[in-house]
């Protein structure tokens, strides 16, 4: 640390009012963290809706009749594994190890895409069996909640592809590192939301 930086910075002895601004990385990370929490509050509203309406089947199929737990277990494991590979990919970004970034983030993408394929197949099967979102309040709430999560995963995959393109074109600039870092937080947060989904929607089905 140079003398100039030291003067700017921030030992515990310097009063709060005289400290310089926090580094961009910290500010950007905290801002994205606040966004993620607001996103989780959005999901909270959808979870509340689902919990209230999960019994309103309008004479149609109930949750217990519709869901296949083995299928959901596979989806869960895909997402959990992708969360870990995403973490390993973030570490590779910090090391600026291009090959490892492509490998781990590629695996993350494949696992995320597998998850979406499984979910899409489940949705298509339900709609084909006449249990589409228009059938009952329960199914509307189900498709809204799980569909919103799936939409987040899809957007995450698009984001991941863009980030890999940026690594190729821009290299590991601080800006790219920050964006990758935010992507990691986003992906982990989606996995946490999925814990709520599989517990309340699929395992809590009566």
């Amino acid at each position, binding site marked *: *640390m140079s003398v100039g930086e030291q003067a700017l*910075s*921030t*030992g*515990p002895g*310097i009063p709060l009012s005289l*400290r310089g601004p*926090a*580094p961009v*990385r*910290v500010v*950007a*990370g*905290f801002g*994205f*963290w*606040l966004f993620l*929490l*607001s996103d*989780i*509050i959005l999901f*909270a*509203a959808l*979870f*509340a*809706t689902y*919990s*209230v309406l999960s019994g309103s089947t309008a004479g149609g199929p109930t949750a217990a009749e519709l869901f296949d*737990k083995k299928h*959901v*277990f596979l989806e*869960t*494991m895909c997402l*959990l594994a992708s*969360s*870990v590979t995403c*973490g*390993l990919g*973030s*570490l590779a970004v*910090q*090391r600026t190890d291009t090959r490892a970034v492509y490998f781990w983030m590629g695996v993350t993408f494949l696992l995320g895409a597998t998850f979406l394929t499984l979910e899409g197949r489940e949705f298509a099967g339900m709609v084909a069996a006449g249990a589409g979102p228009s059938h009952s309040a329960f199914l509307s709430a189900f498709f809204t909640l799980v569909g919103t999560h799936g939409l987040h995963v899809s957007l995450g995959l698009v984001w991941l592809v863009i980030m890999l393109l940026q690594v190729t074109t821009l290299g590991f600039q601080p800006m790219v590192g920050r964006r990758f*870092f935010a992507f*990691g*937080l986003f992906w*982990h*947060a989606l*996995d*946490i939301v999925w*814990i*709520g989904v*599989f*517990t309340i929607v699929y*395992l*809590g089905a009566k």
Partner: protein
Amino acid sequence: MDSQLQAQGAAPGVDARDRHGARSYLIGLLFAVPLTIASFWAATTSFVYAPAVPVLLAALAIAQMGVHVAFFLHISSAPDQTNNLLALAFGVFVTGLIVFGSMMIMTHLNHNMMSMDELMKMQR
């Protein structure tokens, strides 16, 4: 840099002590997989007293969310994480208000309402 982290807080997801280690992700995986398997087991087994299953599922889910927050998002109670932890606490608080508040209100409403069947009969 370390003193700066101490003074101004760290971004969420940054573990100052283990910045280049894959260890925390592997520990997280080691905890998360058995918790997931336990959840799916609890939902299908008849080994657990049936009315207790939802409580068990809730406990397992909260434990797994805790594992994810600690080992994947690296949120801890370290001094440089105070901002992140406070924001998380507020998020959890609002989530709880929305979910449990809605459920409580709607259950009481349903309780005070005439059942749908009787309502239909009256309209005829």
